[in-house]
């Protein structure tokens, strides 16, 4: 039992190694993605947004905190400072959003050999990151424009533009450059890369700490709830404005339009929560099983 409670501790220099590894790899990939041009098909932009599989893989294989912070810093240093595009305070938002998303993704996995877990974690990481960046972009227009609601069509168009780019990034970049490569790399690197850094592979017995495992779930659920709340809030606000400028549209579609969107958001949130809870129930038995074996 003592073995079970043992936390996954790294020495100072091992933390440093994970940090530098993640920083230089993700930084390098950022520089490469900056060079790849994007293909625009109307509103749908097929661009390689980022190679998210690198921080995801490293967060799953090593301590997620150091890998996530290292990757976020690598993006800023290699992708922005060194290319002369450092944006000052705007980078802070990217840093926090990205490292939070990657950290949560890394914490969701406690068995890197379990492909389903790795896949869910990879997609969750991408979705959280894209959601945070979309929310920030919407907020920027909101703060930047005086009497935001009074400008005809602006509220809806911001939401539509950001929503399209969100779906686009999650479905295109997320699946091609986060989900598939992560599923390919994690089982291959697991057990191979750790000895190179002089540490033992993560396994079911070595946990971070109970608090760290439970906390990310709470965070995920709270973020999903926040999304629902924000969407609802936003819809109700733009609805009031809709009546003023575009009464015909509202009458023909009806007020239920808003409730449909809120309902969809709620259903998505509910499904995710149920899946997470089920996974939460499964994982302890998983750990126990390996303990007995």
């Amino acid at each position, binding site marked *: 039992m003592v073995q079970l409670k043992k936390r996954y501790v790294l020495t100072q220099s091992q933390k440093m190694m994970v940090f530098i590894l993640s920083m230089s790899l993700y930084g390098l990939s950022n520089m490469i993605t900056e060079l790849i041009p994007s293909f625009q098909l109307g509103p749908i932009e097929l661009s390689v947004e980022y190679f998210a599989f690198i921080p995801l893989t490293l967060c799953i294989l090593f301590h997620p905190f150091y890998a996530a912070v290292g990757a976020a810093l690598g993006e800023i*240093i290699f992708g922005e400072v060194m290319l002369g595009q450092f944006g000052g305070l705007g980078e802070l938002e990217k840093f926090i959003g990205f490292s939070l998303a990657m950290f949560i993704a890394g914490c969701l996995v406690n068995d890197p050999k379990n492909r389903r877990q790795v896949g869910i974690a990879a997609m969750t990481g991408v979705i959280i990151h894209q959601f945070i960046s979309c929310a920030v972009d919407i907020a920027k227009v909101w703060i930047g424009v005086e009497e935001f609601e009074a400008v005809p069509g602006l509220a809806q168009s911001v939401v539509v533009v950001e929503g399209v780019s969100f779906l686009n990034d999650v479905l295109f970049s997320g699946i091609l450059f986060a989900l598939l490569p992560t599923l390919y790399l994690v089982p291959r690197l697991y057990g191979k890369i750790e000895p190179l850094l002089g540490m033992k592979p993560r396994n079911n017995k070595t946990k971070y700490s109970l608090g760290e495992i439970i906390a990310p779930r709470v965070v995920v659920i709270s973020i999903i709830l926040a999304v629902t709340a924000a969407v609802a809030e936003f819809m109700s606000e733009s609805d009031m404005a809709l009546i003023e400028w575009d009464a015909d549209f509202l009458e023909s579609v009806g007020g239920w339009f808003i409730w449909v969107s809120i309902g969809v958001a709620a259903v998505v949130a509910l499904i995710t929560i149920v899946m997470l809870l089920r996974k939460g129930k499964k994982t302890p038995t998983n750990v126990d099983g390996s303990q007995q074996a």
Partner: protein
Amino acid sequence: MEYVRKLMDRVSVEGVKIELLNTAYGNGNTFLAKLDPRTLFAWYLYFGIAPWFIHDVVLLIGLFLFMTVTTIMSRVSPLIIFILCLGLLSQAGYLLVVSWIFGGGWDTILPLLVLTTKLSVISMASITVFCSMDPEKLSDGLLSIGVPKQVSFGIAYGYRMLPSLLEEYHHIFLSFRLRGVAPKRHGILYWRSIAYFLKIAVLSFYPLILSIAKRTRTTVEALEAKGFSYAYQSPEVKKNKLSYMKFTIRDGLFITVSALYVCLLYLFTASYTF
């Protein structure tokens, strides 16, 4: 194939390396580059945040003109300016087009123009500040305002290692191309070739991750041998490292002129409205 070849020309490793050094050390002798980093940070703290909360058009245009002057003073490469303009215009244009679908009209243009002005003031402020500093100055400046030491280490490490990492990646990429078979036909819109190159670009990371892991271990061992962790915690080391930074009369002049300009601008706007 032509498109792909053009892409490959752009990704020439030597070109990227030269471009990097140019952005880093290209403009070391402008007026702004000789200022203390802390002065520039303080200056940026106002011009990077305040525009968000200013809705007055005259005031914004005044700030915009001022930022244009400082951006010219910092002698940024035209490429960065071009990228900035393109980004701002395409974002605003896209929003405008979509807002038309939702029943917006000419009324939507003015707020969007104001927003674009605002964003360009902020971007130019950050270009002025961060492009005029060379990397050492930036990392020491960040260290002096209390940013964790990892950041300044990361900047130094990035400049040292990135060229060799890029070269290594390029070698792996080329060996994948040598051993693999390129698609016979390009497919519609070259999608086969593009998919092939993207797949190689992703696969090349597998050997790279392993070799960088080895390299990282060597680096950290070397750092430890030099007492990095100890120096990391000691405040005396930091003090010693930053002892060369001091405010000069130039800093005072820069801050005074900026403050004076902003005050006059506010006064002018106030008299304009009444």
